[in-house]
């Protein structure tokens, strides 16, 4: 039911919008949340509970409890009371089948109680063991609350990371937080304020001071505070606070933190305290004040402090019928409040509390009574009240999770009956009700104190700020301490049987369950928590922390101080995993020719960060084409570094084991990079462009590491060299095969003859109008030209070469045929055929190490030591007899013992043979030696070869 217009309401009554709930159309006003619109339409039941599938209604009206979880447009974890209504929204209930009204799993509540104590699944389903898979299936289906959309693309959404460094981060936008932010910002600090509610302002918004709240927010913004609305601080990680706001995760790092996180209202424990209609009194008040919705037709308020009385009066003034207020205390602190209740005609039942709720599918009656020290109703004090809402206020618990995560300690304060966070770590301040400054005046003053203290700690502001701080401290003292709170009984009952009394409504944990756990020996709060899952539900135990501690105190006879409080782990609010995973900052790389590969139907696979053409559907045919006519491969993924400057040659001499400074311009040399331990780390070609500059190519996956390696040594040695990474700037293709020369000639004025452009030479000229560096190198073993050119011309040059080669039968080839071709030549792929222990000499490249070089180079000393020793194993080629291709990684065995492994193996179509490379014991690393390969349980005979399978003398390559 809608109330008359409320002064601070958020809804726009002049307009109407519609959404659907379980297929039924529901009317709302802009500004309504799903829950407020449903409540206005008398929809009391919102969901079914986790374990017993009991109907549940609104509890906190702040978007924190599990009751309001719904599937909103496919998002199963949305909270109905913090999700704004939008036109056409499709909302569905969760965790009930076949319908919200009738749920078959309710049977667990009606009949299963005795069989489902805490931990029943550990005890019941372990025997017989072989049936576990069956049990598991059933349990998995019964567990959980909702279902994700099955298709990946229906679950995808875009999230962003944002890093924000500031002087002060204020968490919580109530009066304390706002005043703290304003004070710090006015002193000159860069301040961020994160508030988790739809609108900052905290209690001011519901307590009739909405205009003051909105003024404060405006003032904060004018003072330069960055106010993040609907933004929840998730945790405290070494000073880094992730703040989740919709689809953005702000990673806020501040020099000082001010926690103004307020308090959380606690529920009361009595039989059937989960009936729809039992809600927190603050929640009932929020519904009326913010959305103009009556929580029900007749409300009974159960209070333990003056704030409950205040809530009752506020509801009455909003137009809600309040049948009575049961106050656990014998008299309110404020006689004025009692008088106002009297004037409103609301009965104040002092010394009483609710001992039972009754009704079918919702509250229709509340029973109040005076209770003894065990919480049992004293005879003759019982009263029945007809009502449909029981608004309970079981006291407030400071929302100190973030403070505790930051390293503060919680101690129980007997005087105020609550846990208080103390011993704040350096750099962390606290303000407002989280540290007991409850009244608006006290909260405001404590906020100013915290904000000014933070500014002074940062060294911002001078004597003026100190003066303001002194004044704020005076205001804080004048505002006085917190009011008196009656300690509610752990469990209040009318002494009759029947009805479950819930301590944790999220997890369906009852008072009986806690007693049961303590009986079984789980008497520490940490153990009882894990055993019963109390406080472990979606609301992170917000509403059940104090009740669960009280129940354990009751069962063990210990005091609350001795029992302590559990620390809620991050995240403080439920957050989609996608928000934490974020959008990756290392996106897939595609070469500028990628579109051509797609058009040609390439199979695309990952190669490091790159998406590369693996083949074009026929790897063997593609390999044959390179050997018979011509092939074209995109090698843009190669790392490319320009090393330039007067010391460039000397610099490369220090990095490579061979000599590069004596390379003539337009000449090319193969090079292997080694670590200080002499082990192979990367390979590629080095081409001298002119006197002072070289183009170095690296493996595709090693580009980043090589650049880092080069720049690191450059930083160490301080040589006159400039490094430019042109990996992304240059595209590259390799045109190879018997017809390659003819095809290239038709596209360029360069002399491509064998004499005019010999092997391992480079030329600079235009090909199809594109400025190119053409290098004659032969990874695939045929006459080949590697063309490097500005990436923007990628598709043009690729298309021009394919067109010119068409009459010669050119084919594009991918990574897989390239691997077959290079294997025929025993050309090593670093990382595939070598590992972090491979030495050049053992990997079949003794010629690459020039120990006669005068200069020192990286790895020299280790390579010198290695040169004196015979390696244990060597990398060789092999062929198998029976045509079986051994798995890469298969083991070389000798006398039944592992003695090496296969690193590469392929069927080579041109040779019509199975070929491969393997590490074998050194004494077997000779031509025609026989080795055995153990592959998935079968033994293959293989013959060793140390020479390339194809064109061993390199005549084809050089022609």
């Amino acid at each position, binding site marked *: 039911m809608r109330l008359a217009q409320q002064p601070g309401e958020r809804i726009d009554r002049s307009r109407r919008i519609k959404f659907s709930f379980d297929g039924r159309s529901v009317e709302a006003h802009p500004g309504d949340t799903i829950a407020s619109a449903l409540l206005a339409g008398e929809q009391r039941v919102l969901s079914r509970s986790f374990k017993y599938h009991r109907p549940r209604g609104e509890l906190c009206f702040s978007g924190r409890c599990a009751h309001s979880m719904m599937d909103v447009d496919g998002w199963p974890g949305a909270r109905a009371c913090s999700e704004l209504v939008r036109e056409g929204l499709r909302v569905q209930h969760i965790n009930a089948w076949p319908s919200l009204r009738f749920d078959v799993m309710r049977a667990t509540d009606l009949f299963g109680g005795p069989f489902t104590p805490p931990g029943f699944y550990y005890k019941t389903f372990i025997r017989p063991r072989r049936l576990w898979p069956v049990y598991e299936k059933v349990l998995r289906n019964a567990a959980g609350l909702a279902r994700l959309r099955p298709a990946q693309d229906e679950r995808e959404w875009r999230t962003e990371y944002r890093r924000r460094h500031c002087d002060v981060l204020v968490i919580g936008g109530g009066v304390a937080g706002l005043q703290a932010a304003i004070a710090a910002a006015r002193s000159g600090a860069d301040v961020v304020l994160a508030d988790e509610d739809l609108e900052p302002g905290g209690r001011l918004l519901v307590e009739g001071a909405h205009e003051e709240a909105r003024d404060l927010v405006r003032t904060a913004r004018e003072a330069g505070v960055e106010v993040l609305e609907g933004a929840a601080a998730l945790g405290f990680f070494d*000073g880094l606070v992730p703040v989740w706001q919709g689809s953005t995760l702000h990673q806020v790092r501040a020099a000082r933190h001010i926690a103004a996180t307020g308090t959380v209202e606690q529920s009361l424990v009595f039989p059937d305290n989960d009936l729809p209609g039992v809600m927190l009194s603050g929640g009932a008040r929020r519904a009326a004040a913010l959305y103009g919705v009556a929580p029900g037709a007749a409300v009974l308020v159960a209070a333990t402090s003056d704030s409950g009385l205040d809530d009752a009066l506020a509801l009455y003034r909003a137009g809600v019928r309040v049948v009575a207020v049961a106050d656990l205390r014998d008299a309110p602190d404020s006689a004025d409040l009692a008088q106002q209740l009297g004037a409103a005609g609301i009965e104040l039942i002092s010394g009483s509390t609710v001992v039972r709720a009754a009704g079918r599918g919702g509250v229709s009656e509340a029973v109040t009574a005076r209770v003894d020290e065990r919480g049992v109703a004293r005879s003759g004090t019982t009263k029945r009240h007809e009502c449909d809402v029981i608004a309970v206020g079981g006291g407030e618990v400071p929302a100190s999770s973030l403070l505790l995560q930051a390293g503060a300690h919680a101690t129980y304060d007997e005087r105020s009956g609550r846990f208080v966070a103390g011993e704040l770590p350096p750099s962390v301040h606290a303000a407002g009700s989280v540290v007991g400054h409850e009244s608006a005046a006290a909260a405001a003053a404590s906020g100013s104190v915290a904000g000014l203290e933070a500014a002074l700690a940062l060294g911002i502001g001078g004597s003026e700020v100190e003066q303001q701080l002194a004044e704020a401290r005076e205001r804080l003292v004048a505002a006085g301490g917190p009011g008196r709170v009656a300690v509610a009984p752990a469990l209040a009952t009318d002494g009759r049987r029947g009805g479950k009394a819930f301590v944790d409504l999220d997890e369906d944990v009852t008072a009986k369950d806690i007693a049961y756990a303590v009986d079984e020996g789980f008497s520490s709060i940490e153990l009882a928590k894990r055993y019963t899952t109390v406080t472990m539900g979606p609301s992170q135990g917000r509403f059940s922390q104090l009740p669960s501690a009280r129940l354990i105190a009751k069962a063990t006879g210990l005091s609350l101080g001795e029992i302590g409080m559990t620390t809620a782990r991050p995240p403080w609010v439920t957050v989609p995993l996608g928000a934490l995973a974020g959008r990756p*900052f290392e996106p897939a790389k595609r070469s500028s020719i990628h579109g051509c590969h797609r058009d040609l139907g390439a199979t695309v696979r990952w190669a490091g960060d790159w998406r590369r053409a693996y083949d074009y559907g026929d790897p063997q045919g593609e390999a044959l084409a390179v050997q018979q006519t011509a092939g074209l491969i995109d090698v843009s993924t190669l790392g490319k570094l320009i090393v330039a400057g007067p010391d460039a040659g000397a610099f490369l001499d220090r990095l490579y084991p061979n000599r590069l400074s004596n390379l003539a311009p337009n000449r090319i040399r193969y090079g292997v990079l080694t670590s*200080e331990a002499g082990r192979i780390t990367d390979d590629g070609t080095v081409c001298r462009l002119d006197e002072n500059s070289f183009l170095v190519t690296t493996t595709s996956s090693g580009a980043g590491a090589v650049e880092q390696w080069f720049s*690191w040594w450059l930083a160490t040695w301080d040589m006159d060299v400039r490094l430019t*990474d042109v990996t992304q700037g240059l595209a590259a293709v390799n045109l190879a095969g018997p017809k390659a020369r003819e095809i290239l000639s038709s596209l360029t004025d360069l002399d491509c003859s064998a004499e005019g452009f010999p092997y391992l030479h480079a030329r600079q000229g235009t090909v199809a109008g594109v400025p190119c560096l053409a290098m004659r190198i032969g990874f695939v073993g045929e006459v080949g030209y590697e063309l490097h050119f500005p990436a923007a011309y990628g598709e043009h040059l690729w298309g021009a070469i394919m067109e010119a080669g068409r009459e010669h039968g050119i084919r594009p080839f991918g990574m897989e045929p390239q691997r077959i071709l290079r294997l025929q030549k025993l050309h090593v792929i670093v990382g595939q055929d070598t590992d972090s222990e491979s030495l050049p000499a053992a990997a079949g490249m003794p010629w690459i190490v020039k120990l006669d070089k005068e200069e020192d180079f990286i790895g020299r000393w*280790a390579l010198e*030591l290695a040169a004196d020793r015979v390696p244990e194993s060597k990398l060789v080629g092999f062929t198998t007899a029976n045509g079986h291709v051994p798995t890469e990684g298969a083991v070389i065995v000798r006398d039944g013992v592992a003695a090496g492994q296969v690193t590469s193996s392929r069927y080579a179509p041109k040779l019509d043979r199975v070929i491969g490379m393997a590490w074998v014991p050194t004494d077997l690393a000779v031509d025609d030696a026989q080795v055995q390969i153990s592959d998935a349980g079968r033994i293959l005979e293989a013959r060793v070869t140390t020479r390339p399978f194809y064109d061993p003398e390199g005549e084809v390559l050089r022609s």
Partner: protein
Amino acid sequence: MSYVLTCPNCGTREVTDFAFGGEVTERPTERPTPRELNTYVYFRRNVAGRQREWWCHRSGCRSWFLAERDTRTQEVFWTALPGDAPPADEVTS
């Protein structure tokens, strides 16, 4: 582990922007004995306390620079390009 480093070129950034290059080691100037070489290549002091170390601003300017950091508290005392770093013998560890 979460802290910030100040790149001498780009300014203060989250540590995840940087690549760690390990503690600063002294490359032998003369031919080392096998034991010295082994120590240089494989062994690190791994101090619990102030350490001079290499960092590379991987997601930024890609420069290498030196930093001195307390490995226990993650407090970073200074960062500097190699030429601007205080002499190593002034470092207490």
